[in-house]
């Protein structure tokens, strides 16, 4: 870290805590890497986001505001990188589909396409209240991590980063119908996972 940067961050004393900064960096890196699928590119984006946020560190009262700010910057950087990607026409590994990505939920439905016994979706009991419970978020994140990689990535791009379907298709070189299939599978799996690990436990 250079001297001028150190001076400006000195204002926010909490940002002097190396353990906190390393933890934050790890969170940012994990998030960026999942979206970008590229360690170095993710590291560059994280570094830029941290620099961008630290430059203005004085205006932040504490860790929480700083983290919000740095994540917001990182999301913008990731969105920019993803949007630019198609212009450089990368030949990406299209053959990255594992068997589990391709599953058709034949275990959920019978041959007529009706729900098999025991697989029917449940009515979620008071889901709004769950959003306020820390344990719910541990379960949700576990469910996200359990998704096949491609499904998780596409779901996050769509629902978390907020890219449009069109943008995702262009960036990921997916057809619209492939995108819909991936989102469908991700939504189905997440619902099943949340039901099993959370809503039916309650």
């Amino acid at each position: 870290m250079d001297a001028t940067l150190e001076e400006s961050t000195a204002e926010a004393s909490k940002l002097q805590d190396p353990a906190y900064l390393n933890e934050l960096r790890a969170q940012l890196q994990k998030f960026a890497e999942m979206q970008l699928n590229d360690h170095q590119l993710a590291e560059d984006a994280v570094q830029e986001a941290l620099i961008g946020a630290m430059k203005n560190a004085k205006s932040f009262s504490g860790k929480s505001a700083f983290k919000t700010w740095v994540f917001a910057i990182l999301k913008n950087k990731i969105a920019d990188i993803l949007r630019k990607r198609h212009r450089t026409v990368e030949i990406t590994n299209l053959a990255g589909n594992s068997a589990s990505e391709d599953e058709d939920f034949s275990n959920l439905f019978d041959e007529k396409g009706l729900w098999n016994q025991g697989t029917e979706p449940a009515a979620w009991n008071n889901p709004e209240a769950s959003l306020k419970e820390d344990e719910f978020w541990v379960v949700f994140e576990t469910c996200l991590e359990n998704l096949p990689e491609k499904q998780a990535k596409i779901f996050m791009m769509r629902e978390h980063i907020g890219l449009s379907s069109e943008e995702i298709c262009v960036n990921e070189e997916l057809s619209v119908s492939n995108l819909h299939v991936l989102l469908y599978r991700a939504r189905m799996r997440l619902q099943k996972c949340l039901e099993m690990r959370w809503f039916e436990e309650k």
Partner: protein
Amino acid sequence: MPSCKEATRLISLAQEKKLDFWESVQLKIHVLLCKYCSNFHKNTQFLSKISQAHKQRDSDET
């Protein structure tokens, strides 16, 4: 009338684009008649809400 499997596919698709008129009519009838797909429909919409809350939380938490 779509099967439950087809109905769930359409429910997810409806998050991405407007379904065509008759697809939408058939899906709505199915959802009215089928408790399980009605649950899936509500849960899909709530999942979107969870993701929004997650995004918010992701940047808020210390």
